[in-house]
């Protein structure tokens, strides 16, 4: 099912992103091989200029991923009408086994690009660009993820077949298929709540602690990743139920819709921003001992840690507010 405007747009966006990184990779190799900040040779000059192109390109890929992540989810939601039993985005993503992997791959690429940009930003602030080689190794390492994400998306869209009427047999055509679940598998709410608030509290604590004491940078990244997963699990298993005021509607995407006042953005924007910042803290830690970065890394990671702590806290507040405001009684107190 390729001839759908949004599908074409999504595939175009990820194909171009892949093509840009692929085209850039020979130059990246050259940078890795011949970079020498002390040299004044013409080659070094060319390489230095080229680095600007790469950071611009990657910034661009990052922005594209962000837009297409949103579009991917919206598109899934819009296409739900075309599949038997699919009520919203979850149903559409479940139509074939590539739906959710494609979504997850896109989220992963998004966070990787964010971490790369943090490293890039840090490096650019040092006088001698100490991380250039590292950056380009990382850039090449990201390429397979981007390729994988594109391949999954392509597989997913290629294997989508809308259940349309054929003139011969009306509804019999789509019969015999088991209907797709509109709600995703979810944890029991009590356990999910404990996990949700526990993981978020730990993540906020770790980030704030790092910002104050400058210790445990890697923990911030690890706890951010865990908090991200716990937060998604929490949204699935209880936050969404409170928002929909329906004990069986677990969809994490419908909360982005106008019917529910776009409430999802209040949660997802801080959550994604906080996770990206938290992962960024971890991404710069290995370079804390580089001489020219000794001052820059702690400062960067302190700022990112505050951002992560603030983001997670904001997310928890937004989610709690939505639960508090809801008329649903999920757990008897």
């Amino acid at each position: 099912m390729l001839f759908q405007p949004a599908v074409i747009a999504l595939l175009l966006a990820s194909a171009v992103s892949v093509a840009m990184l692929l085209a850039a990779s020979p130059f990246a190799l050259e940078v890795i091989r011949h970079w020498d900040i002390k040299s004044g040779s013409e080659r070094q000059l060319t390489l230095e200029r080229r680095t600007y192109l790469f950071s611009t390109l990657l910034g661009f890929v990052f922005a594209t991923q962000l837009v297409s992540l949103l579009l991917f989810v919206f598109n899934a939601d819009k296409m739900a009408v075309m599949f038997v039993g699919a009520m919203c985005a979850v149903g559409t993503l479940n139509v074939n086994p590539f739906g959710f992997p494609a979504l997850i791959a896109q989220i992963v690429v998004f966070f990787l690009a964010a971490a790369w940009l943090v490293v890039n930003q840090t490096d650019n602030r040092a006088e001698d660009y100490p991380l250039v080689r590292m950056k380009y190794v990382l850039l090449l390492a990201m390429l397979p993820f981007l390729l994988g994400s594109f391949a999954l998306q392509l597989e997913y869209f290629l294997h989508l077949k809308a259940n349309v009427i054929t003139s011969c047999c009306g509804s019999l055509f789509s019969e015999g298929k088991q209907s797709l679940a509109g709600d995703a598998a979810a944890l029991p709410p009590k356990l999910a709540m404990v996990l949700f608030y526990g993981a978020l509290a730990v993540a906020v604590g770790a980030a704030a602690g790092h910002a104050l004491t400058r210790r445990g940078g890697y923990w911030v990244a690890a706890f951010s990743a865990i908090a991200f997963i716990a937060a998604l699990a929490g949204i699935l298993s209880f936050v969404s139920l409170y928002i929909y005021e329906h004990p069986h509607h677990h969809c994490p995407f419908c909360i982005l819709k106008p019917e529910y006042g776009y409430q999802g953005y209040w949660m997802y924007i801080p959550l994604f921003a906080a996770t990206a910042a938290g992962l960024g803290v971890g991404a710069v830690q290995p370079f804390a001992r580089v001489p020219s970065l000794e001052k820059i890394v702690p400062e960067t990671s302190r700022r990112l840690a505050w951002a992560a702590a603030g983001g997670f806290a904001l997310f928890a507040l937004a989610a709690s507010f939505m639960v508090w405001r809801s008329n649903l009684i999920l757990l008897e107190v």
Partner: protein
Amino acid sequence: MNTWIEKQKALIDFTLASLARRKIRNLGLLLVYALIVFLLASVMLFTHALRKEAGQVLANSPEIILQRLVAGRHDLIPPGYLEKIGRIRGVQKKQGRLWGYYYDAVLKANYTFMVPQPGALLVPDPGKIAIGAALARMRGLVPGNTISFRSYSGKLFTFEVASVLPHQSELVSADLVLLGEEDFRAFFELPPGHYTDIALSVANPQEVRNIATKLAAQLPDSRPILREEVLRTYESIFNWREGIVLVLLSGAILAFAIFAWEKASGLSAEEKREIGILKAIGWETGDVIKMKFWEGALVSLAAFLLGYIAAYLHVFRFSSLLFEPVLKGWAVLYPRFELTPEVDGFQVATLFLFTVFPYAVATVVPIWRAAITDPDAVMRV
């Protein structure tokens, strides 16, 4: 944070002034850009509005329509068939419907003759009919006029036009002729007890599929058609048509990308000198890229708004003169209808990826090329 915002503001200010210095050149780009946005946005707005309209029309149609097939062709429902269905749990109402097509040699068009369901607002008395607005327009009929139709058996029937259906319903009633049951049976020589098809209404949407399965098992010669399936088919068809048009327009997008690339890489000597001077007075490569980024963003935003507003007017004010033949389909008695204006965030995002994205891709490398220019190299020329 504040200094960052101040810096961006200064950059935007500078960029605007620099854009204004080369008005003609930038206006050309802006116009082409806006034209591309306009074309794509028109297609999207139009198909979206049509889809919406189809959904609204179908919202009030019965959940299941049961047709009988004979040798694979749609046939009349014989007497006793309705009773054979019996009681199926979940079905609120089941009713035989009477409708058919009539070819009018005068207009060379097909009309739909239909008997309103009992209890409908408008049930014409014997000898009277209610007609659709397009039909009334084409045949020049007003309430009180009489009109004759020669039936398929050769007999001439004369009806009095009791009313013309309201214009708001024209999308579905353009070619409609509503008449009483006796008139219908006499006109088409349909014996009592026969029906065209059966409409079933089901309250619980989740039960619809089960009921259709039961119907198909009970009456093997029947074909249940579900409303959700019709809806699904419309959705696919409109999306597919929209997709095809966009693919056809992709040549235009590509041409536009090449144009943008050319524009961005063919810097005039003056522009080069400008960048050279900026760098000589202390701008960094990154700053020049930022400036160029703002330039692209401002041009894109202006073109996007311009193109989108023009498309909006084109579709909803001037009923999409340019795309009607492709996207709407064709008929002799074509309904005149106004589409309900509707802007959808999802479509705007898709449109954005179709227009701003190619522009950005095409200009990244030229921008970088411009930004790395050495000050002395350009000033020496």
